[in-house]
């Protein structure tokens, strides 16, 4: 853990600050497409990053292993890999493991060992840890690898998805990991401009826990209290990045507290008290109560974030929109980007492009998922 901590934050600053380019696209009909488009788009915003970090998240990535937790894990050395492999076989049912295929790439220097493991939770540990869900169990094990095995770091741990990231410009990372050969229905991408570290592979975005991924452009001024609040719920912010706080906050509110993204957006980017005065009573009451209870999860300071999980992609800025976000639509495709030009480069005939208001969530969902959710909500009401 110490090694990870030092790598990520060698100067022991409050938190790791970085500015960035972010991009995301989802085909809401569920059609899968390769990583070429998203690479072209993020490469167009090269000036927003400085070659110290790039990464991608892909959903719908492993249809042949859709019911397995897919762990992408980075190792600094062989020993860490052996230790982790043993840990995984002890704690999971390991179906398949392989080195993630790569290409020699000019911009990529000294890459770590990166493997993927397809895992199932076998029943034994579940019985031991009564009361925990499968997901909770996986989260606990990921935290254990990250903090206890020196030199091992889990990039992603969700089903039918994966994170590819490292030190370099995002287009180099894409080339290195051969992302043109993969297909997914939802891609997010990130180019990083860290201000205080040399950059290390684990520190690049997307940041992920289970199938949640976050790419993020911003510096959270409320970091200190967001972190202390999350600690009360058992989260340990080992990486000291704003993005990590975002990921855990989303996990707490959406997975554990079961709140929909629209509500979560109202917590992260709460409407101003003065805006509430103009709302009708039910809407206003809801917002007041959200702010009373979750005020410590108000995310203050400049940020734009693209949060994704199975079947859903959400773009959100802080409530006074101090970082850029543009949305675009063409047919079933929703695009989110730091800059409009990047969208138009890969989709010159956009139907619509707009700049969302500060704090307004832009949500893209698989139609399938949308239907399921609607019927679920109806049932709840019924």
């Amino acid at each position, binding site marked *: 853990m110490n090694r990870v901590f030092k790598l990520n934050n060698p100067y022991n600053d409050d938190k790791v600050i970085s500015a960035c380019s972010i991009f995301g696209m989802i085909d809401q009909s569920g059609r899968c497409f390769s990583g070429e488009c998203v690479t072209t788009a993020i490469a167009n915003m090269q000036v927003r990053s400085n070659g110290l970090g790039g990464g991608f998240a892909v959903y719908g990535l492993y249809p042949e292993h859709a019911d397995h937790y897919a762990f992408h894990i980075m190792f600094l050395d062989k020993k860490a890999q052996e230790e982790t492999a043993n840990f995984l076989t002890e704690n999971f049912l390991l179906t398949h493991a392989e080195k993630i295929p790569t290409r020699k790439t000019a911009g990529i220097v000294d890459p770590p060992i990166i493997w993927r493991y397809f895992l199932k939770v076998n029943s034994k540990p579940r019985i031991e840890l009564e009361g925990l869900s499968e997901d909770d169990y996986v989260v606990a094990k990921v935290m254990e690898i990250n903090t206890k095995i020196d030199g091992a770091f889990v990039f992603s741990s969700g089903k039918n998805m994966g994170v590819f990231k490292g030190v370099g410009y995002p287009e180099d990372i894409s080339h290195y990991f051969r992302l043109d050969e993969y297909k997914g229905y939802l891609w997010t991408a990130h180019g990083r401009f860290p201000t205080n570290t040399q950059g290390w592979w684990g520190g690049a975005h997307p940041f992920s826990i289970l199938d949640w991924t976050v790419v993020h452009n911003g510096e959270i001024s409320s970091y*200190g209290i967001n972190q202390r609040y999350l600690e009360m719920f058992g989260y340990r912010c080992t990486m000291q990045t704003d993005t990590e706080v975002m990921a855990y906050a989303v996990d707490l509110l959406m997975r554990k507290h079961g709140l929909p993204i629209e509500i979560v957006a109202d917590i992260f980017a*709460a409407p101003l008290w003065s805006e509430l005065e103009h709302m009708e009573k039910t809407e206003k009451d809801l917002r007041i109560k959200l702010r009373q*209870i979750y005020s*410590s999860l108000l995310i203050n300071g400049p940020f734009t974030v693209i949060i994704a999980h199975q079947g859903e992609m959400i773009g959100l800025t802080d409530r006074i929109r101090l970082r850029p976000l543009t949305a675009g639509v063409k047919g079933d495709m929703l695009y989110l980007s730091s800059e409009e030009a990047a969208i138009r480069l890969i989709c010159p005939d956009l139907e619509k492009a707009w700049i969302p208001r500060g704090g307004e969530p832009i949500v893209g969902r698989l139609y399938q998922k949308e239907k399921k959710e609607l019927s679920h909500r109806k049932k709840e009401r019924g």
Partner: protein
Amino acid sequence: MKTLLPPEFKIIRDEAKCIKCQVCVRQCGFEVHTYDEEEDVVLSNNAKCVACSRCVKFCPTSALNVIKNPLSYRENTNWRQEVIHDIIKQAETGGVILTGMGNDKPYPIYWDHLVLNASQVTNPPIDPLREPMELRTYLGSKPDQLVIKGKHVKTKIPPQVPIETPILFSAMSYGSISLNAQLALARAASEFGTLWNTGEGGLHKELYKYGSTTIVQVASGRFGVHPDYLYAARVLEIKIGQGAKPGIGGHLPGEKVSSPVSRTRMIPKGTDALSPAPHHDIYSIEDLAQLVYALKEATNYQKPVCVKIAAVHNSAAIASGIARAGADIIALDGLRGGTGAAPKIIRDNVGIPIELAIASVDTRLRQEGIRNRVSLIAAGGFRSSADVIKAIALGADAVYIATAALVAMGCHLCQKCYTGICNWGIATQDPYLSKRLNPDLATQRLINLLRGWSLEIKEMLGGMGINAIESLRGNRLHLRAVGLTQAEMDVLGVRQAGA
């Protein structure tokens, strides 16, 4: 017995400027100044002067000044002048030395060793003159999670009280201060959207109309406590202790128990109102829980219950117990908290600085995962908006101010509140003196103070790149320490500046 006490202060009268108008004679309730008609001269008795500055500020020709009596004893670090004088006083009276206001001894003031952050480059500062900046805070117990169906919150939320600035007026009882002073506090709180606190002296019937911005106290003497008093309030506060005198009860000298005070307190006129040191129905934490719930039952769970304690060595553990005993709010009153009357030896030696108490209590409640269950109000010598904002960054939800509010109304900290004489009309029940405090002007001065501090808080928040006070609450990364030891920084949870 001839007193061996020399005068503490010396009055300097510029005879060339003095027009013998006798304003000073009339203004001084301590009868320092007298007019000799035969000689046509105004005389001053230094021995009676308390340095309240009333005559100096009201002299129409600026002929007066008060200086410290430049009396010299042989220099001695241990046997300072104050120590010698205290011994003389006790040798002459055989009593406990009383005093007023807060601890004036040179204990470290941690606020002056904490500096704030500001945004540069990586993060834009926010300009409060052009952008919204939110200070509203809700006091009350919060559940850990909301269950929401559609647009409706299914979770039952305990009562929440909004304040528009994180500054409340702390407890000062009717009796210790005049009705005009309380009226000004009540009106200023109502107009500004914050709360004031009755202290343990009951609520005068003229102030019931300010009930929705009133915190009423239930203290060990139960003075003035009856159902209507509880119904009238917005928040109920059980006073266990006070920063100026931890471990002992309230003390109102009989001189200040006038007939309206006696009616409001429900005690005989002219008698000393001495609250017992403990609540005699609270000898342990489970007893506190009973009183908390008795008050909640009495008010149908409509009002948050606050428990106020003095900051002492074990505050963190005590606060945890209070949170678990069902309180909605905890008020912590530190070493420098003020009082109308307290034994000097206690005021100056008992309790711990509020900065350390806030930090250790907030940390402990978070370690135990129960910080959401209570709001935390800090009290005890807050001098400026900087102290307030630092307290919030350490973990307080809001702060109580009292001494600063008194100073805004005219108090000059002469520390004679316990005598019943207050030339500024604040800490007195003498109608001749108390009518000096014009409630309209005092209200305006209090509102101005709240406004000034709130504007400054907004400026500092904006500088940090934050536009809502809750994003600073408990956010200690925005604080850095200068000139503190590692042990102090560990307790405060704050890092060394530059590191």
